[in-house]
C-alpha cells in the first residue's frame, strides 16, 4: 500500500515539477479546438443575425432558436446541442464512449489530430517524468522524435486491442447480450442494472488494456525498447507480476479523476449570462479540463514512478556513466548510485 501511495505522491510531484508539460499540453488542447470553435461561432452568429433571439440567447437559452438552428445545422453545428451546457458535456462524452462511440463525426478530424499530437508528445512526456529533472525543449522534443515511430507501431497494436473491445466485445455485450437478455423484460430498473453491469465488465477490460498499454509505453521509454511487441509483453509481464500495485495505483489515480469529476458536477456553470459571466463560465470549464489533464498526466507520472521503483537497485548494477541521450533507465540507475549524469 505504501508503495502505491509513494508512487502516487511521487507522480504528483513529477507532474508539478514539469509544469511546462502540463501547461503546454493544455494550451495545445485549446489551440486544436479553437479553429472548429471559430467555425461554430460564425455559424451561430449568422443564424442569429440581427434577431432579438440573439439577446435571449445571450442572456440565457433561447431553445426555440436553438431548435431552429439545429434543424439546418451542418458540420460542427450538428454537435451544438444542449449537451454542451455544464456537466452535461462530460456526461455526453462519457455516455458516448460507454455506448461504443468515439467522437461525433464532424469533430472526428480534430480528434484524430489531437491523437496524432499525443502520439508525438507522449514519448517526450514519459521521458520527462522518468528523468524527473528539468530538460530543455531540445531534449524534450528529441525524446518525442525518438519514440514517435515506436509509438505509432505500438498504436497499431493498441488499435487492434481497442478495436476488439469496441467493435466486437462492446457490440456483443451491449447490443447482443443485453438486447437478447432484456428482449422480453418488462422492468426497466432490471435492464438498467444489467446494462450498468455490462458497462462495468466492458470498462474493466478497457481499463485493463489501457493499464497494460501504459506500462508498455513506460517500459518502451524507460528501457529504451525498440520492439513495441516486446514492450507490450514487458508491460503485460510487469502488470502480471505486480497486479496489486499496478491495479491499486491505477485505482488511486482513477479515484483522483472521479473526485475531479464530482467536484465539477457541483461547480459546472449553467447557461445564464454573457460577456464576463460567459468568460467566467469558460474559465471554470477550463479549470476542470486543466485538472482533468493533470489527472491524466498523473497516471503517466505515478506509473512511471512505480515502475522505476521496481527496477534493480543501482548498487548491484555495473554501468558506465550515462551520457544524454542515454535512456532514462540509465539515468535512474546513475541517480540511485549517486553518479554524475553527463
Amino acid at each position: 500500500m505504501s508503495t502505491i501511495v509513494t508512487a502516487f505522491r511521487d507522480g504528483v510531484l513529477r507532474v508539478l515539477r514539469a509544469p511546462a508539460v502540463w501547461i503546454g499540453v493544455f494550451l495545445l488542447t485549446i489551440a486544436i479546438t479553437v479553429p472548429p470553435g471559430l467555425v461554430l461561432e460564425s455559424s451561430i452568429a449568422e443564424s442569429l443575425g440581427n434577431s432579438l433571439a440573439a439577446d435571449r440567447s445571450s442572456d440565457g437559452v433561447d431553445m426555440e432558436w436553438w431548435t431552429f438552428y439545429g434543424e439546418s445545422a451542418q458540420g460542427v453545428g450538428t454537435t451544438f446541442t444542449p449537451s454542451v451546457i455544464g456537466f452535461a458535456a462530460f456526461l455526453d462524452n462519457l455516455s458516448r464512449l460507454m455506448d461504443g462511440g468515439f467522437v461525433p463525426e464532424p469533430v472526428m478530424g480534430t480528434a484524430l489530430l489531437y491523437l496524432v499530437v499525443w502520439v508525438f508528445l507522449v514519448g517526450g512526456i514519459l521521458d520527462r517524468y522518468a528523468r524527473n529533472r528539468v530538460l530543455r525543449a531540445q531534449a524534450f522534443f528529441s525524446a518525442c522524435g525518438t519514440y514517435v515511430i515506436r509509438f505509432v507501431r505500438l498504436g497499431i497494436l493498441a488499435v487492434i486491442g481497442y478495436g476488439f473491445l469496441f467493435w466486437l466485445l462492446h457490440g456483443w455485450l451491449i447490443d447482443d447480450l443485453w438486447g437478447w437478455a432484456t428482449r422480453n423484460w418488462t422492468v426497466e430498473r432490471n435492464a438498467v442494472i444489467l446494462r450498468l453491469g455490462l458497462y462495468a465488465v466492458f470498462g474493466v477490460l478497457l481499463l485493463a488494456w489501457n493499464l497494460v498499454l501504459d506500462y508498455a509505453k513506460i517500459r518502451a521509454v524507460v528501457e529504451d525498447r525498440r520492439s513495441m511487441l516486446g514492450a507490450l509483453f514487458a508491460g503485460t509481464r510487469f502488470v502480471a507480476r505486480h497486479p496489486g500495485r499496478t491495479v491499486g495505483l491505477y485505482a488511486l489515480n482513477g479515484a483522483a479523476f472521479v473526485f475531479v469529476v464530482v467536484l465539477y458536477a457541483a461547480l459546472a456553470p449553467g447557461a445564464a449570462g454573457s460577456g464576463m459571466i460567459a468568460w467566467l463560465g469558460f474559465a471554470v470549464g477550463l479549470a476542470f479540463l486543466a485538472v482533468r489533464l493533470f489527472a491524466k498526466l498523473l497516471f503517466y507520472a505515478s506509473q512511471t514512478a512505480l515502475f522505476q521503483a521496481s527496477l534493480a537497485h543501482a548498487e548491484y548494477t555495473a554501468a558506465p556513466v550515462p551520457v544524454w541521450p542515454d535512456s532514462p533507465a540509465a539515468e535512474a540507475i546513475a541517480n540511485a548510485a549517486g553518479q554524475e549524469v553527463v
Partner: protein
Amino acid sequence: MPRARTALIMLAALAAAFGTAALVAQPPLEGAPAPRQAVAAVAAGQAAPLAVAHPGAWSPRNASYSIDVRLDHASRTLSGRAILTWRNVASVPTSELRFHLYYNAWRNSESTWMREARLRGSSAQAPRPGDWGWMDVSQVRLLTGATEPVDLTGRTRFIAPDDGNPSDRTVLMVPLPAPVAPGDTINVEVAWTSKVPRTFSRTGTIGSYYFLAQWFPKLGVLEDSGWNCHQFHAGTEFYADYGVYDVRMIVPSGWVVGASGQERGRSENADGTTTHAYHADDVHDFAWTTSPDYVERRAAFEHPNLPKVEMRLLLQPEHDTQAERHFEATRTALRYYGEWYGAYPYGYLTIIDPAWQSRSGGMEYPTLFTAGSRWLAPAGVTQPEGVTVHEAGHQFWYGIVGNNEFEHAWMDEGFNTFSTARAIEANPAYRTNYYAQRYFGGFIPWVFRDIVRTREADGNGLAGYRGSAESDVPSTPTYMYYPATGGGLSYSKTALWLHTLERYLGWPMLQRIMSTYFDRWKFRHPQPQDFFTVANEVSGRDLGWYFDQVHRSSNVFDYGVSLVKSEPVAASGFVERDGKIQPAEGATGTPRFRTTVVVRRHGEAVFPTEVLVVFRDGEQVREAWNGRDRWKAFIYEREAQAAYAEVDPSRVLLLDINRVNNSYSTTPKRDEAARKWMLKWLVWLQDALMGAGFFI
C-alpha cells in the same frame, strides 16, 4: 314464431325512434345477458335486441357488443365469441356488414399496415417469427329471432376498399341475406381466435403483460354515403359507433385486469382461471389489459362543479412512487377540460401505466388510457405528466366527441395537443417544466434547469410542424398523408392554429367555440365542417379565410423584418428657409433620424399582424399590417434612432415557422451570444478530446 318476429320488428322501430333523440341521462344497463344466453333468447324470440335505444342514453348506442373472451397465456391467443347488436342509423339501407380485423395488419409483411410502416421507416418492419399476430373469424351467424341462425361464414370475404391490396385482411365483408333498412336492428354472432402479437400499434403482449386493443372483430360505421370501414393503416387510428359493451374476460387467476367500463362481477373457474365481467355504456371501443404484476391504486377527482370521478391506476411496481404524479396529471385533464369544454360524465376512469418495452403507452380508449413513465423520472420534468394529461384529455376529444380518426385525426389529436399544452400551462404545479436528456443508452436522465419548455413551442410541437409543414394538406384524409407526417400535421399544426385562434379571438371566445362544439357533437361523429360552422356561428365572424389556409392548404406563415435602418436626416440640394431658397447643408437644429423598417411576408399564407418599432429613447410605435403584400416599409423621423423592430410582437401567429427572423435589432447581440455558446462548445469539445486522449 311470427309473433316473436313482429315483436322484434316493433322493438327495432322503437329503437329507431328513440335512437338519436334520447341523449339526456345515462341509465345503467343492468343484467345484460351473457352471449350464449343472449343467443338462445334472441333465437327463441324471448328477448329484445341488446341495442334497443335506451331512453336517457347519451349516445345512439347503435353498435353494442356482448363478448366472451378467453386469454390463453401459454399460446398467447384469444378465443372469443361476440354478439353484435347493430341498428342502422344511416339514411340508406345496407345489404352487407363490414368488420375491422385489425390484428390481421400483422399477419404478414404484405398487409397495407406493414407496407406503410416500411415506407415510414418504422422499426416494426422486421418482426421476428413469434411477433406476428392475426385474427381468424371462424363463424358469422345472423340471429334472426324467428328462425334458426343463418350461417354467413361461407359468404364472407376480405376487401381492400382503400388500396385494393389483395394481401390485406383487415376488412371483412359479410353479405347479408336481406338489406337492413334505416332504423332496423340486427343481431350478429361472431366467433374468432386471435394470436396476440408482440406489440404493434400499442396492442399486444410482452412477458406476462398484455394490452389488448382492437382485439375483437369490430364493425365499421355505416354513413349516408356507405360504409366507412377503412383498412388498417400505419398512420391512423380508429372510428366506430357508440354502444354498450358487456365483456367477460377469462384470464389466469391472480392476474389483475383493467378494462374500459367498470367491473360488474368476478368469478373463479375450476381450471385456474378467473372471469372478469365488465360493462360500459355509451362508448365506441373497448380495450383491456391484464398482468400479474400490476399494483393497484385508487383516488378520486372532485370538483365543485363537475361530477366526481373515481380513478383507478394500474401501476408498474417499479413506478410505485409515481402514483400521485399520475393522479395529479389525470385530475389536471379532468378539471381543466371539464371547466373549459364540458364534464367527463362516466364517473370512473382507469389509468394504465404500461410495462417497460411494451410499446403500449400513450394511447386512449374509452374510460381507459395508457400513460407512460420511466424508472428514473426526475421531478421538474413532465414525464409521466405530459402523456397522462394528453391521454386523459382524449376522453373528451375522441371518447366523448367521436370524430373519424382514419380521416380527420387532427380533430382529436390536434384539439387534444392544444388542450394538453394549455392545461399544463394552467396548472401551477407544472410551472417548472424543464428540458431533460437521457444518456447511457437512453436510461439516465439529466435535467437542464436552464431550459424551460414553453407552451408556444414545445407544447404545441412547433418543430414537429415545421418539419412537415408543406408535406401535405391537412384536409387530406389522414390515412393518405405523406408518410410519417401525421404527427406534424394532425397534432402540431392543429394545436398551433388553435393557439393562434386563441390569441386572435381571445380565449373566452375560443373557449365558447370549443365548448359549444363539444356540447353539440358529444357522443356523435362530427366532420371538419361541423367545427368550422360552430366557430363561425359562435364568433359571429366568417373565419373561412383562416380555415382555408390552415386546413385546406399547406401554405406556411412566415413574416419577418428584413431591414431596420436609422440615418441622419441630411437633405441635400436647396430648401426653403426663412422665406428664402437656401442650400440644405446649412440647416441647423436638433439632429433627426429617418428610420426605415421593412417587413416581409416570406410564406404564402396571409395573416393580419402588427409591427412594433422601438426607438432608443424608449418610444414605441405599433403599426397594424394586413400582411397581404409581400413587403411593406414604415418610415419615421424621430430624434432618436431605432433600437429594434418586431413583426407580430405579441406572438399571435404561432404558426409562423421562423420566429428568428421576426425581429431586427440595430444593436444585435449576435456576436456576444455566438461567443458565449462557442465557449461552452469549446469546453464540450475539449472534454471529448480528452476522452479520446484516454486511448493514448
